[in-house]
Every structure is written in C-alpha cells, then in structure tokens.
C-alpha cells in the first residue's frame, strides 16, 4: 500500500523530470543538427522557472480549468503505464483507460484555448484534433493488434508476455504494427514534422497563443509529459518494457533520440499532408498487421 | 336459318343491346348517348321478355277453364319488364334534365370536350 502510494507520488515527478530532460535534449539535438551550439540542457527548466515568475493572464475559469484538466490527465496516465516494473494502477481498466485518459490532454488544452477566444487558438485546436484523428487511425489499429495478439487489455500483461518471449517489435506478426508505430511516433509526440498544431510562424503557436506566465509553464510541462508518455507506451508495447528503471530509461532515451534525429531534418508538413501521410503507409501497414494478427490467432 | 328464326327474339335483344352499348361508348354527343342508353334498356327488356316467352303460348290469364299453365307465357318477366321500363324512364328523364343543365354550363354536349373532371 505504502509502496503504491509512493509510486503514485514518485512516478509523475519522474515523468516530469524525464520529460523536461527530453525537451532540453530535443533543443540541444536540434541545435547541433543546425550546427549551432544550442542552449543548455536545463534551458526548459529555466524557461519554466521564468514563466512561473512572470504574471500570467487568465481569460476566465475555464481557461484555468482546461489546463488543470490537461495536466492532471497527463499525470494520471503515468500511473497506468508501467515504468519498468512500477505500474501502480494496473488493475483499473488497462489500455482502454489509457486511451481515453490520453484524450484529456488535448481536450483540456482545447477547452482552455477555446476560452481564450483567439482564432489562432481555434485553428490550432482544429489542427490538433484533425492530426489526432490522423494518427489515431493507425495507432488504434496497432494497439488493437497488440491487444488481440496477447488477448488482453492490460498493458502489464502485454509487457509480461513480451518478457516471456521476444520483444514484440522483433516477433513476426507484431513487427508490422511495430513498424507502423515507428512511422507515426513523431505524430503521436507532436514533434517535427508534425508540429503543425503549434506552428509559431503560421498561427502564432496555435492553442498556446494566449498562454503566458504559469499557464505557458504548465503547457510546457504537459508537452514534456506527452513526450514521455508517447515513448514509454511504445517501449512498453514493442520493446518489452523493462525489468528495472535504468534499462527503461535507456530504452526510451534511445527511442527518443532516434526519433528526433530522424525527424529534425524534415520540414513541417501541412495538415492535409500530415493526415494523408498518416492514412497511407502507416495505416496500410497497421491494417495488414491487424489482419495478420487476427488470422494468426 | 331455323336457328335465326327460333332465336329471333334473342338476336333482336342482343342486337339492340350491342347497338346501345356501341353508341354509348363511341358517340360524342350526350343526346346520342342517351338514345343509346334507351336502346340498351329496350334491348334488355326484350331479352327479359324473350326469356319468359313460349312460342305459341297464350297470355297468362285463366280466361278459359281449359287453359293449362304450361301453355302460357311466363308472367313474371313481364312484371319485371314493367318495373324495368319504369326505372328506365326515370333514368332517361333524369339524364335528359341533366343534359339540359350540362348544356347550360358548358355550352356544348360534346362529351369529348366536357373533361374538366379528370385525373
């Protein structure tokens, strides 16, 4: 019981720390790929600190509420996804709960951005939701293939199943959804070339347009958490999770760095281009994967 | 030949009926149609009478003690025909009076032109 509560407290903090680290790393890697020196790794932390000391501007109760919902949702999901052997809420609904809790992040941001009443925010939200629809099609196919392959809706069982044999990414029918997941991973994470949602140059950073001060700080944290969550979901589903936190951290780090390195060289896609990409190859592969999995079963 | 002779009443009746029906179906003028109606009814009346007629039979009245019922023509059709004639007259009268009214309204009795009520 105490251990569970401790995990419940610890894991979100860990998630935030790792997420911020990833953000810093992301900026650093990007800078290096641009032949720049780049900011220090802790630059995101400095930014967040600064933002907390800056007075924010609130548009109303829902403006606050949306962000709280978003961040709380992000923190809650961490408890449902195994971090190595730690998964405090494994018996509370499994993958399906994760899927639905993941909605809270965009929904909260969308509510908050909507209350801000800025058209740029509206456009950004619209893009966010369309993009989400775009990557959910292959993502759902992928998740369903994994779940029906292991005949379970519990992510812990899926991890256990892989640890018993091989990693799903390297096992036969599940390799297809694995590849599809790799193809859509940047879209899930919302990094380049799929950062149309918050494109600063086009729509003044979209839903974030009215965020200043602590609100923006929260938004950064949410972004950090979503990076962490997206990758740890991938690691759990296809790279067999991990037996101890260090290995897990290494795994997500490797995946993240690979993902960033590959995608940093792409220019930003237009939203239709993004969606049509997502609905072509990744969906086709994922669909094939689901067909094969249901035939194999 | 004898067939024609023996059935002459029936032939006449059927002929009248067919003439009447032809007129009613084919003629344009309402008065002619009414005349056709009259033909038609007359034909039916003849048919009824013919149905009860016995060649050489007497009137169905026991005016003579020797008379046998078998030799008499059937009286019932005659009674029927009387009724039918009355009915026919009534219809005819009504038809003619309606024809007058129709002419008042339309200025014509041509049934091909009186087609306001259709479809």
């Amino acid at each position: 019981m105490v251990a569970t509560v401790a995990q419940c407290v610890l894991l979100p903090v860990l998630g935030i720390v790792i997420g911020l680290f990833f953000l810093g790393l992301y900026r650093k890697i990007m800078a290096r790929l641009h032949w720049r020196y780049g900011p220090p790794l802790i630059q995101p932390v400095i930014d967040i600190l600064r933002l907390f000391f800056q007075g924010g501007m609130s548009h109303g109760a829902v403006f606050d509420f949306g962000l709280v919902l978003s961040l709380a949702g992000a923190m809650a999901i961490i408890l449902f996804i195994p971090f190595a052997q730690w998964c405090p809420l494994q018996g509370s609904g499994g993958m399906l709960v994760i899927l639905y809790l993941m909605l809270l992040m965009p929904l909260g941001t969308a509510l908050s951005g909507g209350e801000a009443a800025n058209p740029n925010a509206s456009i950004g939200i619209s893009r966010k939701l369309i993009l989400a629809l775009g990557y959910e099609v292959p993502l759902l196919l992928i998740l369903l293939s994994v779940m029906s392959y292991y005949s379970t809706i519990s992510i812990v069982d899926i991890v256990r199943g892989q640890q018993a044999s091989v990693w799903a990414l390297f096992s036969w029918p599940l390799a297809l959804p694995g590849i599809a997941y790799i193809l859509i991973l940047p879209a899930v994470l919302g990094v380049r070339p799929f950062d149309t949602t918050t494109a600063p140059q086009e729509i003044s950073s979209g839903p974030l347009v009215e965020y200043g001060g602590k609100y923006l700080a929260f938004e950064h944290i949410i972004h950090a958490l979503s990076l962490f969550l997206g990758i740890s979901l991938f690691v759990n589903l296809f790279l067999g999770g991990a037996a101890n936190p260090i290995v897990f951290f290494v795994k997500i780090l490797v995946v993240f760095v690979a993902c960033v390195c590959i995608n940093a060289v792409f220019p930003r896609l237009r939203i239709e281009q993004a969606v049509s990409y997502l609905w072509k190859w990744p969906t086709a592969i994922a669909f094939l994967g689901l067909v094969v999995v249901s035939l194999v079963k | 030949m004898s067939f024609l002779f023996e059935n002459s009443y029936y032939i006449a009746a059927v002929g009248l009926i067919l003439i009447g029906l032809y007129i009613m179906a084919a003629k344009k003028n309402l008065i002619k149609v009414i005349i056709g109606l009259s033909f038609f009814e007359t034909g039916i009346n003849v048919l009824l009478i013919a149905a009860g007629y016995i060649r050489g039979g007497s009137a169905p009245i026991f005016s003579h003690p020797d008379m046998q019922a078998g030799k008499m023509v059937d009286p019932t059709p005659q009674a029927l025909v009387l009724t039918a004639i009355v009915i026919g007259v009534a219809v005819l009268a009504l038809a003619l009076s309606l024809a007058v009214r129709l002419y008042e309204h339309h200025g014509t009795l041509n049934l091909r032109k009186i087609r306001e009520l259709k479809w």
Partner: protein
Amino acid sequence: MQIILLTSFGGAFATYLLAKISSRLRDVCAVIVSGLLVVFVALLYNKTPAATLIPSFVGAPLTVRLNMLSWFFAIAIVVVGFLSIVFSFSYIKGKERADFYYLMMLLVNAGMIGIVLSADLLTFYIFWEIMSWGAFLLISYNRGPALRAGMKYIVMSVIGSVVMLAGILSLYAVYETFVFSELAGRIASASPAYSLACASMLCIAFAIKNAVVPLHTWLPDAHSEAPAPFSAVLSGILIKMGTYGLILVLYLFVGVKLFISPTYVWRGFRFVLLVLASITILVPSFIAVMQNDAKKVLAWSSIAQAGYIILGITFGTTLGFAAGMFHFLNHATFKALLFFGIGAVEYRTKTRDLNSLGGLLKRMPITFIAVLVGTCGLIGIPLTNGFVSKWLLYKTLILEGSPFLAFIALIGTWGTILYGYKLLHHVFLGQLPEKYKNVRKAPASMQFVLIILSLAVVVLGILPGIPLKLINTIAVSMGMDSMNINIFGIASETGALNTVNILSVLAAAGIVVWIILKASKKSTRISQEDNYAAGAAIPAERYSYTVDFYNPLYRMIRRYLRDIFDEFYYWIAGRVQAFSDMVRRLYVGDVGCYAMYILLFLSALILSQVWWRVW
C-alpha cells in the same frame, strides 16, 4: 400496472382539459402526472406484476407485465419524460398551441411506457403506433422545415410499422400467439428460414426506429426540427424503443443461445447486424462533424451512439449486452442533457446555427457545464458514464476476437471527439458576438433539469455498479452468464475496471495542479477583447474562427460522406410519385372511355372463361 397506464394516458388528457381552464393548472398537472409516473415505476422495482387490459381485442387479449428489463427501460422513460416536462415550462411558454404540445408529450410518454410494459406483441404494436403518430405531431410542431422532417419521419415510421405488423402476424400465423413468454419457448423449434424471416422483419422495423444506417434518414431532420424537450425524449428514449424491440427479438424470441450459435443462418444474420451497427457508428459520426446546426450534430450523433448500443446488443456476449444496455441508459442521460442544453441556448439566443453562436460560456455558465459534462459522457471521458459502457464494449470486442469492430467503434469515438468539441467550441467558447452580449442565464426550471442530468452522468460514471447490477440481473434472466460486478466497476481476470482508482488519481492530480496554479504568481483577469491579434485591437463585431472549423478534414472526407441512402430514398419517392401521376392518367375524363373500360372488363372476364376457363 393499470394505474401507471391510467395515469399516463388519463393524465395526458386531463392536462389537456385543464389547460382549457388555465395554463398554470396545466403545468402543475403535467408535472404531477409525470412525477407520479416516476414514483409509481420506482415503487415497482424488483416486482413482477402482470395484468390483462382488455380480455379480447382482435381475438387475443391485451396484456401487460413488468420485469427487470422493462423496468430498466421504464425508469429511464419516466425520468427523462419528467425532466422534459419540467424543461418545457419555460421553453414552451408563450408559444402557440402549448396545450396540444403537453398533450402530445404526455401521450408519447404514455405510449412508450405502454411499449415496455406490454406483454404481448399486439399490445406492443398498439402502443408503438400511438407513440409513432404522437411523435409525428410533435416533430411537425415547429413548422417550416419541420414539416418535411415530420413527413420523412412518419413515412419511414409507417413503413416500419407495416413491416413489423407483417412480422408479428407471420409469427402469429405459425405459433398462434402474441404473448412474449409463449413465443420465447417455441421459436427455437421452428424452421430456421421462417424464424429468420420473421426476426428480420421485426428487426427492420426496430432498426428504422433505432435509425440503423440504411434506415436512418428520418432521424437527423426529425431530431433537429423537433422542439428541444422533445428532441431530448426522441433521442434519449424514443429511438431506444427500437433497441428494446431488438432485445425482445434477439434475446427473447430467438434466444441468445441460438442467436450466437454458429449455425449458418444465425451467424449470417448476426454478421449482417454487426456490420450494419458498425457502419452506423462510423459514418454518422463523421457526418456529424460536418454539420453546422447544433441539433443536427446531436442528431447524427444519436445515430452513431445508437450504433454502439446495437453493436453491444448484437454482439451477444454478456459484456456486450451489458455495454449496450448501459450505453442505452447513458445515452438517455447525456444525449437528453445535450439536447436540453442546446435547447436552453436556442431558447435564449433563438438560433442554433453554430457559425453564428459563440462565447456563451460567460453568459450561461450552468448550461456550459452541463453541455461539457454531456459531451464528456458522449466522448466517454473517464468518470462519466459513457466511458464505462464503451469500456465494456471494447473489452468484449477485443477479447472475443473482433478487433475490427472494436477499431470502428474506437474511430467512431474520434468522430465523437471532433464534433463534441466543435459543439462546445462553437456555442460556448470563442468570442461572444455583440448581439448575444445581453443573453441571460437559462431559466431556473431548465437549470434544474440540466443539473440533475449532469449529476446523473457523473454519478453513473463513478458508480457504474448500480446500473450494472440491474443489467446483470437482466442478463442472467435472459440466460447469459453472470458478471462479477462491484460498485466501482467490474472485476475479472481479463481486465478489471475500477473507477474509484481513476477518480482518486485524477482528483489528486487535479488538486495538486490546482494548488500549484493558485499558489504561484497571481494572474490578471483580462477580457476577451484583450486578445493577441498581431498588435491590432479586436474588431468589435466578431473575432472567432468557427466557420469551416475542420476545413482540412472536410476537404478530405466530404466526398465520401454523402448520405447516399437519403438521396436514394428521395429518388424512390420521386419515382413513386411520378408513377402515381402516370397511374392517375387512367382517369382520362372521357365518359366514352370509361364505358369502354366497363365493357372491356366484362368481355375480358367472359372471354378468359370461354377460352381458357380460368375461373
């Protein structure tokens, strides 16, 4: 039982008569009647009375009975009916023909109660028809486009009715009975083809009412044009009478054992139903995204949600059945809530055009919260009731090896998210247009209804065990396996659900974040005019991006989402009309020709006999 029916029908007419005296009296009477119904039905919990209404109608008695299944439906009917009456107070005040409106509301309500109470198909059919034409009169109530909607509704409804009549009588022709309980035993023994034919006919009728996809076209128009309180009833309850009918057919007449048995006939039947249900989920969800009329969005959404219910019920496992039943209850709550909410907005702003609304959050906060909760339920955000039923559905679909169905259902949920957010955003978020600056809060009676239903959505989401226990009882009585229910969800080896964990985690995280938010440097409150617009001041009229909200998506999917069935039905209707026009050209108006008709008939009759001896 009789008291319930007497109250419902008598109450309707009493209300109408009292309305002639005073409108205040009418309102009171309507509320008393609908409230009494709630009480009566609630009192009958877990009782199984039965009664005969008319000993012999057309050679068969009209009987009523109550069991858990019908109680489950009945309680939803009376509660939503009660709330819709309460909501109507301010909504209908000052509109024309309010007396008639109340009469019809109560009558439709009574019809629905009759449907779920009836113990035989004849009674069922009679109440069904009463409900149908009552609904027709209510749908047409708003005039204008409502006429077309009403026409469409009643034509499809009548088609459904005649098909159902044919189905009922086909059953009767073989089994010589209308009574459910007697039919239940015997159908399994009949020839599969015949019982399949009967079942399909009944299913078509129920599918029309339930708006399963090829038969759905009446619903979007009817729902959006009906008066708001009735839209809520229509969407929440009335179309679910089709669901009730389907349950009767599939689980009672056919029997779940036979229905999910792997025999060729029934497997095909079930397959067809499942495919239709998944199409019903998928396509309408995305059509809803493209609508610009708030109630049309909800209407299409009703079709899609009905698809979930049908999918659950036709899937045939206990979990699937539970999902369908629970989703019925949820849909009754959150969709009624949404219709009420949008109705309140419409009442205040006199429009439901999404492109012209906006920013009402600051003017109608309670309504916003209600619609937010309703939308969350619709999407299935955890801690709302929609989540639990969808969870059950997905779980059974995945574990029983139908991942494709699960996929379609999940994608449908994404459509739901898109239009759900669109609804919230266009009505409540964004800039408040000048002309709605002075919009007032919804009236108290409306707020009461909204609050009650919002609470219901949340409470059922946190304590799903309450209805699930009931559903479990029903499922067991239908001959299915029992589920392991606890108050916070479901426990099993293949994946448990525990809402209290989710609740506590979310609540804790939310509180922590909230405290951080409040504890850090205080933010200044700014108005919506103070908004970043590249350094320009906000134009006073409007500054809100709502037209073509999902434009890139529309461009991509619009051409695939034509309502071809609607077009097809209109085409058929046009053909029939043209053909009818041709037929009536037979009566040319020329009496000679008519005389020829008579003679031709006569000669045809005689000649056919003389030559061929037909007769």
